[in-house]
């Protein structure tokens, strides 16, 4: 990275004004993902002193500051309980602790990395992103956002839901990008299914979810049909890690296994 100036912001407003004053200025979260892309930055703006590194659990939600590190998040007791630990699991597969003690959840989400492990898992929960100065939107909406967006992510709010989650990262070795990510979450009577690293970024399988959620009984046939709808409605592609056909086979297998696991185990 090339960085001309470094500034620790004393308020969100100061950070925001500095950010929009020059297109070559940037906010740094952990700087871990940032380093991998080697950008050239005029002024690097640090939110370290703005107390955005807290995780606060209330009755209905878990509020996560954007500067919380991935490791902090993974080992947090409230997060570990969520969905029987599938969010923590999706974080634990990201490189090693030396990386996760630096990378932040804010930097991870804002980067919208297609290979992200934690984003597909979060997509299956009701997650709201809070930006400064004054925007709020769902994680899914943020992922679909087009065009330039300069607002600063300050908080990630997960609405607490009782249920069971499933997460699978398909990869040959633990330290590489996923060939495919599959996340499933079942609460009361609602299934959520997300696929990531397709190699495209994480998406919810809406048509498949609609079908599954309309069923009274979760039989083998229903599960089979749900997985086929995923293949018909979600786009998969080929790259050097895997072919489109193989990704489809993986998606089918793991959507089925995920549904079974959150329903019956």
């Amino acid at each position, binding site marked *: 990275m090339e960085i001309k100036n470094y500034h620790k912001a004393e308020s969100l407003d100061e950070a925001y004004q500095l950010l929009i004053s020059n297109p070559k200025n940037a906010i740094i979260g952990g700087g871990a993902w940032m380093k*991998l892309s080697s950008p050239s930055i005029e002024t690097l703006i640090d939110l370290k002193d703005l107390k955005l590194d807290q995780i606060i659990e209330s009755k209905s939600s878990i509020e996560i500051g954007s500067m919380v590190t991935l490791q902090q998040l993974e080992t947090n007791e409230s997060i570990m309980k969520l969905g029987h630990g599938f969010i923590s699991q999706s974080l634990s597969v990201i490189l090693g602790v030396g990386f996760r003690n630096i990378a932040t959840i804010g930097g991870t989400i804002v980067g919208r990395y297609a290979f992200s492990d934690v984003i597909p898992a979060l997509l299956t929960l009701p997650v709201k992103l809070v930006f400064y100065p004054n925007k709020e939107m769902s994680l899914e909406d943020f992922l679909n956002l087009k065009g330039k967006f300069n607002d600063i992510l300050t908080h990630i709010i997960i609405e607490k839901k009782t249920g069971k989650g499933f997460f699978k990262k*398909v990869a*040959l*070795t*633990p*330290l*590489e*990008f996923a060939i495919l990510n599959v996340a499933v979450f079942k609460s009361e009577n609602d299934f959520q299914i997300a696929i990531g690293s397709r190699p495209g970024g994480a998406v919810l399988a809406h048509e498949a979810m609609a079908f599954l959620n309309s069923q009274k009984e979760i039989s083998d046939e229903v599960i089979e049909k749900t997985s086929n709808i995923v293949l018909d409605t979600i786009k998969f592609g080929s790259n*050097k890690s*895997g*072919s489109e056909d*193989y990704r489809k*086979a*993986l998606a089918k*297998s*793991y959507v089925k296994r995920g549904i079974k696991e959150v329903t019956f185990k």
Partner: protein
Amino acid sequence: MRIVKHKTPSIDGKGIMMGRPAYSDDLADPNALTIKILRSPHAFAKIKSIDVSKARELDGVEIVLTYHDVPKKSFTRAGQGYPEPSPHDKFVLDEYVRYIGDEVACVAAINEKIAIQALKLIKVEYEVLEPVLDFEKAFENPSVIHPEEGIREMFPIGFLPKKNVAASYEMNVGEVDKVLKSCDVVIEESFYTQAQSHAMMEPHSVNARIDFQNRLVIYSSTQTPFHVRRILSQTLDVPLSRIRVIKPRVGGGFGGKQALHGEMFAALVTLRTGKPSKINYTRKEVFESAYTRHPMRIDIKLGADKDGTLKAIDCYILSDTGAYGEHALTVFMVAGSKVLPLYNKVEAVRFNGQVVYTNHVSAGAFRGYGAIQGNFAVESAVDILCTKLGMDPILFRQKNMILEGETSPIFAIMGEGTEGTAMNMESCKLDFCVKRGLELSHWKDIYPRKKLKDNKVKAVGMAIAMQGSGIPYIDMGAATIKLNDDGFYNLMVGATDIGQGSDTILAQIAAEELMTTVDKVIVYSSDSDLTPFDTGAYASSTTYVSGNAVLNAAKIMKDMLLEEASKALKVKLEHVKFDGYTFKSGEKEITFSDLANRLYYNEDQKQLTATGSYVGTKSPPPFMAGFIEIELDLETGEYEIMDYVSVVDCGTPINPKLAQGQVEGGIVQGIGMAAYEEVKYGNKGNLLSNSFLNYKIPTTKNIHKLTTEFAESYEESGPFGAKSVGEIGIDTPPAALANAVYNATGVRITSLPITPQKIYEGMMALKQKEHANENK
């Protein structure tokens, strides 16, 4: 034995873990100029013009070198015995660039930032040429990768650069075509092995300075300091006596540092500027601009009779040496010479092939050195043959494999680049290795597979392997032992510790013979001024060749000590007894430390030193049997390696823990090649696998269990019965895994790595075939 064949902690592990300066870059001169290399963006091109004026003008830049500024002598970067079996096809800098990452220009500046800036100011105009990126299309390709004058082979190796051939070879035992025709069963198959990156943890690192005697002193993370000195001297026309090469601690080599990487530039920059300099490869440069393993296509024909007698082996290899021909001939030959003798009772064997140039990253030495590629092909082919024969693969191997006391004609025919050396297997416990491995792997309970729940299956596969111990009549090692006051020794060896623990085991050998303890043998290694010669850490030579040299030196020292003791005690030599601590003769005695002090300070003063050398007259192979257990998901093709059982015959393991570390480290690298690692290129010849994110080496989570045992074995010609253990571990995993996957699914994978996707596609193809047959 009190010290040899016992575990002892390495003599340097603690100090290194505690952070003492030890590696090349830790020892660089603090004022060293930083060297950066401008590298070619084209797979094949000619430099039409190169303008470095702006770079030279940049404040802080000391020197910029292009091909106009450097000697025009061809050489080989390969660290091998001289004259080398590698073609001299490399120039320090050339007007041709032959792979993406090849050297174009060299900049030295006062710091890294300025050096990188200077690179950006160099203007190069290239004439882009058509690259050869498919090694199966390289032979007689209109695009000639080495059209230049001034390149040559040092002795006939089949060097035909106008046809893009770096080397070729053929050997025949008997008449293989005739015998094949007479066989009841013949199988034929082609196997592809991929290029593998060494991925050692320490990137290549060299620094240079001029000392106060006006000599060039090089610190290099190298496996072959003496070869480095010679090659620098010959290429840069500097007298050998004005160059000193020191190898400090090395953070892994595995063959990837058995050549010059950066030494030429550090030497030139320091000679021209008079200033110290250093060059540290980035991780990207280690992937892109150092070496890979030779990728190969191996065509195998095996012929056998109904009763399971293997009668003929026909082996053709096409090997891709990339842009330069270092190790081209020798790796290719080892793919035959260190695999084919495993089945020594055949009536006929043919081994032939070519090594071609392509515009890929240069291939070079890599642990196994051809044996792993050849082993994958032959040991897979054997299982294929067994299926066709309807014969158990264990029984087949036990019937046909080499045993103690036997020999193979191939030993006499195939050496490394030259003729070989005939030898009998004085020590070969391959039969025990197989038997014991069957027990440890629970083979009989699982073979071929066992159903598990959830559409998973457990399966086993195996392979046998051999390697060598040094290169006979070529590899020489030497050791000097110096006695100190108080009764301890300095052991100076040329042998190159690159992390395998040679300093430690050589101290153990000396301590055993001198009847002292390891802490009383202080090792100093690999300094071309202060230590005697050694060819370096390759060809699994250190324990056998350097170890024998140490043993010789220790024997001479012991004789000298007895002589001095007899003088001190004023008795006849024959009457002196030594137990390591005291020299006794009847009632008279003198302690070892008293004798040492006497020799330093009191009477009959002299400095005792003893030098021993050794050249092997044979290369006794270590042997092993490797057994893999996998759990495979029949739906997705994913699998996990649950256990790898290795039973190894390395003769006497000098240090059982370190020997186990060599085996297991090799096994895991072999598993990497079998299952995960792949050097991948894009369409333009650009390396896609140029970081650990893209190039996947095994992690601790990939390895569930490794079970390693050593056979009781003793090689008379080796130091205290030892052979070698550095490479044998890497050879079996690819074939063992391929065989296990076949046993699990019926899918035969013939190209590496064996990925879940390949297995899945194989299973789909089998299902379709079944459906097609059912519908008939």
